[in-house]
């Protein structure tokens, strides 16, 4: 099996799906599932391989290089995994919606182009795949076609284009200077380049990757895009697509520049990595507090995507073996639980007829138990409770920050977690707990094909939380590949003299204590079940259907912090957009449509040229 075959299957499958859709809907759905499964299986076969091979493409003499190593494999397997689950989820979620051929084609095409970005070994094809990914994402964000969806799409594509143009400048500059775009050759050549130039290149690429990764202050496209996209695609968007930015950073920071060169990029106390760490810290806290104020289920998750990106960059930019491993592991964990949570939000939308407003839901635990369990496991992972995968990666990041003398960074990371508890609980409480409103009396659990992705991802959250050694083995290989020393990993976590982590130990303790306490509880007198209206109200009459506390769940806090949390960056961008629009409108006024006016412009311009010639005789 070869890498070309993998890409051909991925892209060819996407196109074929589109044309099969013209024949029959069932055939198209079946083929889409099979295709994404085939890509998943094929990708998993590449585990542990190190391939680098040029493919004759004969285009301007630039060779098209494909490569596969542990870093590529790690990102590739998350892409195809979430892609597969998302297609399964779509079968029922997207049923009876229009433009389905287009939807399946675009989803598969995005997955294929994402796969392309991580599998290519030269920057030109990287850029081409990157652009294919960006443009098709735009098409799918605006899939719903209403004003908000189109606005979100436009916002995304403008920021994304700015990012890729900056990247293009960097690529051209590299080609002009070194005459090659192959990553392995660049990695050796750039070591000899002047430091200033290296920094310039790194900053260009970092801006591009920060936009797609939604780091503050480039985060503004993400909440709109994630909220407006259809849920299965929100999952892909949040779990893997934005993390292509992290892949780009790995590529440039550690695989092209390398650790030694990176450490030299330092001016006094300010280092390139230090700046990135602080951007991460700001992103974490800002996003966590903003998420508190949201009342739209998918917007909360979108903001949490922004915030979790902060943890990754904090770990990765800190440049220690443990930190990079923690950041990398966090990418995987985030991919699992945010994918899960978007599936949950989608399930709620599906069952309640498209409700995303957290203020009008409640009590759905009795109607949708599987989704509830998915939600609670997902939120636990997001918070990073022990026994979920999120805990292990966060533990590694915190430990790095504390023991390497950056307590303030650690503080911001911790604070973000406490913000996460608040909005995570709000997410669960407002949807599943509290009283069930009467209009949702007939809500049903989602069909099995939508439960399946939720169940699989929930199992993974727990599995990787109790046995983190499985993914950490891969992460450790990546670490060494990028030039860090190898960590001492066992099945239950990390072993080291300065405080080891043993998750199996914690798991056993919690399990045993939980069972004992549970048995004690069972031993007590059996309880009678009552309905939700049988409540203690301190003697007051209970108005049915209005006795629920969900709206403005954290009101005292939001009144305090709201005024400090104005998204000035977004306001600035919007103002800039308004300004550009005004200027454009002003210029358009010149085009009056009267031939007389145009002749006048020509005459005035000629007169101007003649004046210049008479005065200074420049021509």
């Amino acid at each position, binding site marked *: 099996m070869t890498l070309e075959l993998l890409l051909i299957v991925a892209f060819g499958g996407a196109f074929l799906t589109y044309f099969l859709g013209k024949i029959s809907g069932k055939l198209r759905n079946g083929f889409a599932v099979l295709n994404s499964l085939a890509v998943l299986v094929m990708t998993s076969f590449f585990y542990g391989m190190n391939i680098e091979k040029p493919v004759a493409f004969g285009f301007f003499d630039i060779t098209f290089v494909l490569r596969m190593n542990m870093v590529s494999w790690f990102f590739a397997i998350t892409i195809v995994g979430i892609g597969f689950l998302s297609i399964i989820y779509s079968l029922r979620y997207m049923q009876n919606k229009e433009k389905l051929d287009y939807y399946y084609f675009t989803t598969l095409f995005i997955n294929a182009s994402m796969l392309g970005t991580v599998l290519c070994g030269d920057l030109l094809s990287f850029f081409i795949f990157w652009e294919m990914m960006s443009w098709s994402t735009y098409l799918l964000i605006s899939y719903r076609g209403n004003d908000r969806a189109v606005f979100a799409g436009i916002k995304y594509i403008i920021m994304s284009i700015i990012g890729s143009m900056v990247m293009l400048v960097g690529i051209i500059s590299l080609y002009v200077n070194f005459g090659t775009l192959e990553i392995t050759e660049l990695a050796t050549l750039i070591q000899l380049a002047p430091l200033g130039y290296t920094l310039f290149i790194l900053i260009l690429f970092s801006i591009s990757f920060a936009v797609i990764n939604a780091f503050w202050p480039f985060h503004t496209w993400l909440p709109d895009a994630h909220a407006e996209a259809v849920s299965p695609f929100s999952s892909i968007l949040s779990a893997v697509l934005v993390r292509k930015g992290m892949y780009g950073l790995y590529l440039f920071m550690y695989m092209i520049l390398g650790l030694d060169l990176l450490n030299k990029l330092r001016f006094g106390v300010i280092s390139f990595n230090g700046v990135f760490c602080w951007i991460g810290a700001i992103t974490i806290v800002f996003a966590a507090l903003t998420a508190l104020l949201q009342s739209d289920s998918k917007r909360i998750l979108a903001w949490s995507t922004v915030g979790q990106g902060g943890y990754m960059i904090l770990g990765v930019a800190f440049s220690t073996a443990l930190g990079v491993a923690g950041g990398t592991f966090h990418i995987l964990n985030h991919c699992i639980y945010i994918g899960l949570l978007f599936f949950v939000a989608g399930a709620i939308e599906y069952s309640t007829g498209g409700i995303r407003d957290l203020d009008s839901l409640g*009590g759905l*635990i*009795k109607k949708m138990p599987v989704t*509830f369990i998915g939600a609670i496991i997902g939120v636990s992972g997001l918070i990073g*409770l*022990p026994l979920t995968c999120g*805990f292990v990666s966060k*533990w590694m990041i*915190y*430990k790095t920050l504390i*023991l390497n*003398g950056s*307590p*303030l960074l*650690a*503080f911001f990371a*911790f*604070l973000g977690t*406490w*913000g996460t*508890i*608040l909005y995570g*609980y709000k997410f*669960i*409480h407002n949807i599943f*707990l*509290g009283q069930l409103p009467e209009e949702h009396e007939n809500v049903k659990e989602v069909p099995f094909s939508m439960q399946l992705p939720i169940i699989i991802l929930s199992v993974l959250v727990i599995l990787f939380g109790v046995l983190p050694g499985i993914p950490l083995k891969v992460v450790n290989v990546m670490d060494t590949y990028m030039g860090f020393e190898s960590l001492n990993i066992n099945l239950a976590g990390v072993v080291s003299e*300065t*405080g*080891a*982590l*043993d998750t199996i130990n*914690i798991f056993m*303790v*919690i399990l045993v*204590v939980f069972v004992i*306490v*549970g048995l004690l*509880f069972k031993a*007590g*007198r059996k*309880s*009678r*079940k*009552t309905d*939700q209206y*049988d*409540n*203690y109200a*301190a003697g007051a009459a209970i108005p049915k259907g209005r*006795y*629920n*506390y969900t709206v403005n*769940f*954290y*009101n*005292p*806090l939001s*009144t*305090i912090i709201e005024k400090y949390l104005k998204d000035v960056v977004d306001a600035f961008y919007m103002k800039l957009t308004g300004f550009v629009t005004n200027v454009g409108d002003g210029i358009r006024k010149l085009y009056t449509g009267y031939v007389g006016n145009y002749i006048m412009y020509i005459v005035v311009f000629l007169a101007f040229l003649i004046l210049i010639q008479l005065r200074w005789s420049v021509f």
Partner: protein
Amino acid sequence: MIIVQIILVPIIALVMGLLFMGLFRKMMARIQWRYGPPITQPLIDIIRMFSQKTVTHGFMFEAGLVLSLAGSIVVALFLPMGNITVFETGGLLVVLYLMLLGPLGIALSSGESGNPNSSIGISRKFLLALGYEVPMLLVLLAVMTHYNTISLAEIVRIQAYRGWSFGSFPLLLSGIAYFLILPAILGIRPFEIAGAAQEISSGPKAEYGGKFMAFSTLQHGLQEFIGLSLFVNLFLGGGDLFGLFGMYANTFLGNLLAIVVLLIKMLLVFAVGVCINAAFPRFRIEQALNYLWTWPSLFAFAGIVVIMITG
């Protein structure tokens, strides 16, 4: 040996939790010139409540409560008890995260009851927690940075020969900050916001009766135990008494004495807390946040800056 520890430590913690609650009621009564209930009243209540009729609101209503009590017991197992720490893996970071299980369990459980008073109580509890976590995290990070370890047991061991953190210069500011937020951690007045009996029918506890109430009471007692134990272990040297029992080190008697010393220290700190409780009315949540984010946070921040400078 470890089996005995695993059984004994939670029992000591639970008994101490109940003792704290009994003492609380007795001391408050005496301060208010009443006679007050006997100190064993909470224990008597719990035994009585186990035999009472109860209503339940669903699966999570029960599972959340079990999770909450189990989580708190697990935290007790991770805290140093004198010279003994039953489980050390992951250090203070694990303790910090395990401490979430208690409140989250209660929140999930009483959230399902559908009583808005409970929901308001939980909302307040989380806000208060966010309030005191700001100074508390700064304090914990200061301690961990100063001793350059994430292990709680290690911090206690270092204090035994370098002197208590509370008395040493760079950690004094952090210690003051921790003391200033201690009432909020213990949930006593002026921070009795989440369980305000007169405003929101005791908040999260509103729907609990019988064995539910018993479990929630036990959990509350453990929560007090954890808050106090963390303070004493981090700042007052844990089970160390100026090295007075050094000759009994590593013997059974030494371990026992260390536990006794630890518990006495906790009782003394708690007594101070009760006096604060008696002297103050209740804050509103905004007032609490304003307080927690000014003086204690300033002290904690100053503490961490000093430690970052002095190393």
